[in-house]
């Protein structure tokens, strides 16, 4: 029996050494240590050994079992590690292949710019309002100090519905609508579509404006400038400067055009600003006292400022969009750039 044990031991250890896979090792385990394995079978034969020899035989058998087990465990650990390494190697992917994404949508650049602008003014205590696009002549012109047959009507090419109704040529009629219904202090911005019968390379018959209006007991040109300076810094960059140039609008007095330092060249002069370093972005002024009075606000007690800016122009500057027509073609290749 002793020889038998020694023989099993050397066969088993050899088999373990030669095994290269975890399933092969498992086979070894079953062959020697399984329920009917060779070691287990010998254990069962111990009863047939003489009483004197039995303890020594038992111990020898057990020692061999422990040796086989520990050899198996050691080899299994090695084999499993190498098998894991092989599996990981086999699972390698080309990490430069594209990832799985869900489709990305986008908001229109005019929406993005509009929300950027509104955010700046919301931060300064302005509320947001909207108004009708089909507007009465009264609000679009007359209450803004532009009577019928006034030459200032030539400043804007108007779409008419009939003698009394037009497509609003600016967001300014909402100034009158708000002032006739609200008592100061008023601080409001009004985004919206406006219409002018002008269609060429640099004009669209439909475009977007944001109107601003502030009316209170003591509003100055300084407040207008401070408010627009804040806007320019937040909208473009903190080093953006503005300048006011005298101009004319019937509903503001004094009236100004407002330029910002060119966002492209930072005032050095480039193609966008035509070498001047400045880009015109909006018209503004102190609300004409005649307008306040027509809207039922006492111009002796109150004053205000108003401004109107074109969204398309700001978006073109901000995103470097070369042509106003692109906004309205809605080509997917244009829209998807703004996600």
């Amino acid at each position, binding site marked *: 029996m002793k020889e038998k044990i020694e023989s099993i031991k050397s066969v088993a250890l050899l088999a373990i050494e030669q095994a290269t896979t975890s399933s092969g090792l498992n086979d070894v385990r079953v062959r020697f240590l399984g329920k009917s394995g060779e070691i287990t079978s010998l254990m069962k034969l111990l009863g047939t050994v003489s009483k004197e020899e039995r303890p020594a035989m038992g111990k020898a058998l057990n020692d061999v079992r422990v040796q086989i087990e520990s050899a198996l465990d050691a080899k299994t650990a090695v084999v499993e590690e190498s098998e894991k390494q092989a599996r990981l190697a086999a699972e390698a992917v080309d990490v430069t292949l594209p990832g799985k994404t869900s489709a990305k949508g986008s908001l229109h650049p005019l929406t993005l710019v509009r929300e950027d602008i509104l955010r700046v003014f919301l931060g300064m205590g302005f509320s947001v309002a909207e108004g009708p696009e089909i507007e009465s002549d009264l609000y679009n012109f007359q209450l803004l100090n532009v009577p019928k047959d006034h030459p200032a009507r030539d400043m804007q090419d108007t779409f008419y519905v*009939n003698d009394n109704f037009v497509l609003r040529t600016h967001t300014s009629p909402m100034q009158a609508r708000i002032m006739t219904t609200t008592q100061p202090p008023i601080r409001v911005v009004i985004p919206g579509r406006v219409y002018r019968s002008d269609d060429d390379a640099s004009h669209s018959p439909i475009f977007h404006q944001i109107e601003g209006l502030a009316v209170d007991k003591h509003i100055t040109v300084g407040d207008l400038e401070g408010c627009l300076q804040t806007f320019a810094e937040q909208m473009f960059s903190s080093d953006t400067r503005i300048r006011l140039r005298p101009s*004319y609008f019937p509903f503001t007095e004094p009236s100004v055009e407002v330029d910002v330092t060119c966002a492209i060249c930072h005032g050095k002069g480039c193609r966008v600003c035509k070498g001047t370093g400045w880009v015109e972005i909006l018209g503004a002024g102190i609300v004409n006292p005649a307008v306040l009075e027509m809207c039922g606000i006492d111009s002796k007690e109150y004053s205000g400022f108003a401004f109107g800016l074109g969204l398309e122009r700001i978006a073109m500057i901000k995103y470097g969009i070369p042509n106003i027509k692109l906004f309205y073609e809605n080509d997917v290749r244009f829209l998807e750039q703004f996600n």
Partner: protein
Amino acid sequence: MLAPVSWLKDYVDINVSPEVLAKKLVAIGFEVEEIIYQSKKVSKVVVGKITQVAKHPNADRLRVISVDIGSKVLQVVTNVPVEGGETVAVALDGAVLADGTKIVKGALRGVESEGMLCGLEELGITVDDVTGQKSGDIVRFPEGQKLGVNALEALGYNDVILDVGVTANRPDCNSIYKLAKEVAVALKTDCREPEINYVSTGASVKEMVSVEVLNPELCPRYMAGGVRNVRIFPSSQRIKSRLRAVGIRPINNIVDITNYVLTEIGQPMHAFDRRNLKGGKICVRTARDGEEIVTLDGKKNALKSSMLAICDAEKPVAVAGVMGGENSGIADDTTEIVFESAKFARDSIRRTSRALNLRSDSSARYEKGIDFASQEYGLKRALTLIYESGSGEIAADLLDVKVDYEKDRKILFTTAQIEKILGCKVPRGTLKSILSRLGIPVEDNGKTLVACVPDARDDIVGVNDIAEEFIRVYGYSHVTPTLFEFSALTKGGKPAKMMFRDNVKEKLAAFGLHECVTYSFTSPKFADRLRIPADSPLRQTVNLLNPLGEALSVMRTVLCHSMLEVLAYNAAHFNKSARLFETAKVYLPKELPLTELPEEREKLVIGMYGDDVDFFEIKGVLEGLFDTLHINAEYAKSLLAFLHPGRAADVTVNGINVGFVGEVHPDVAAEYDADCRMYVAEIDLETLFGQYAEGGSFKAFSKYPPVERDLAVVVDASVPAGDMVKAVREAKIKFLDSAEVFDVYCGAQIGEGKKSVAMKFAFSSTERTLTDEEIAAEMKKILAALKKRVGAKIRV
């Protein structure tokens, strides 16, 4: 307004470059849109002297000449019969002529030519622009002209012209003289007056003509002067070239003088041939209905009683302020003229000019507004030019019919008021001096100031106007920016409806859709395209009186038409698929013609096409949107005629129809020139806004394992799956979390006209693990409900 710098210099000394002048004008409110250099009309055309002339070896009519341009001598081949010794204008290699032609050196019949001799036409000018040249010939300079210099400069065609944008409040500045006054203010210097200097001879103008004004409200002032022994001849070079520089064609001395005065003083003038004024009379009156006049442009105009006419004793001889009549114009044999210098009401001119569709430099000027002082000044200036040019003998006296008017307007103000408007310190002395330089004298009463505003500045009516006049010269750089220094705090914020729309847009973008913006007006054909029924209110559109074209003439009542156009556009422009949306208004008139504002209603439109797009994708977007808005929508087969009859659903929320979703009918898609399947949904955002719930409240979820059960039943093929889910939902099943259809199968085993629908149900309890028996009992109830409501049988 085109303003030649040389003309401005008649009245103001300008010692700065045109660029600096332009900047200074911009700073005081006159935008300079362009600086035009006459001498840059062509490039690389210089003065050269012909030193040698030889015959061309290969062509009898060509000569090979040597042209000395100072720095070198060129060889030029020309067909001009020159003899040698002439000083000429030569275009060099790389020159660009007035019409854009580029000159490149090259061989002409085998002989190298390095340039081309130029005539006036190549330089883009005429004999009216320069002296000493002939038309149809090459340019010839006198002996001794410096060689190599710009030929236009050498011709004296070297003025610089400013294109000045004059704002509508400053009509007076549509004249060289008034603009020169502003230039003087900008340059802090003085301005001279145009010269008035003539001697009259012979009898009074009253012997030539009488003037009567019947409508003084339309013609507040009418002045007339007379000229006898008139001689008609071409104007002087100076007048001709100045008129050409501002874009007016010289005609003869008399007509040119009226145009010169219009440009210089801003006063429209008209010259009548006196022999054509019947009865020696000018009567300013509104026309009689039915009266006609053929104007100088040869057009026959039917006048109306609302229009002001200049008439003689019998008939209209001019449309007042707009255009003279052919019957009274200046001819070569005219011997006596009457100059008209009048002020007409601007709105009357504007209406008449538009009604007759008749425009002139005069009407354009009158529409902007003319002040009272100009008539006399303009008339005297015209007579001065007649006198200077020897064009005739000036009759004594002037006729002047006018209403009373205030020569100036007094405005009382204080520096504190100006400071309150501007928010900056206003030095009293500076204020007074600026205003006085602007021609607005100020009386200082110690505490208050009084500005005396001349009639010409009718744009100045109050303290704000005074503030503007001051600051535009003083400079906005003196204003310090402040942020509502003296104002109350305001809370600001966006209205809920706008936030709702923002929310919808952000959600749709997150679902992978791109936002579009389309025009609000469209073609009236949209209603037929979309098969909108004849009696539908959606056919009641607000129409434009003056659209840019029929395709942009009606305000839309639906959005999906624009969306389908955008989809078709994208499909035709190399885009394989598109998933788009827009939120915008539709315009629904309450009655037509419009007497009150129409309803402007906010809508959402979604559109898609592409190989991987189907009905369930666009519906899925709607469902996803409604889910995030906590809105329960129901879908039922739609009968909208422009949609696919089997792939269209009406959408309702809480029993209210909010729109539709579906595939576009192939016939309709074809009309949009789309060769793909298009999917579209249009939803009323206003209704949705009324139905949606902000956020949601927390609902406890179970910590016990949920139980899922599947059930396959057979129903008639026509039973909508939605009805089956609804039947289960309404059957008050206990523990039920969700019920959904996950498979629909039709096939031979199921039977003709039948389908098998597989549904999945999930149950849970927050209190305990549910038992099989409990679930089995509920499943039985579900089956019973399906049997009862849709005739379902269990699939075996």
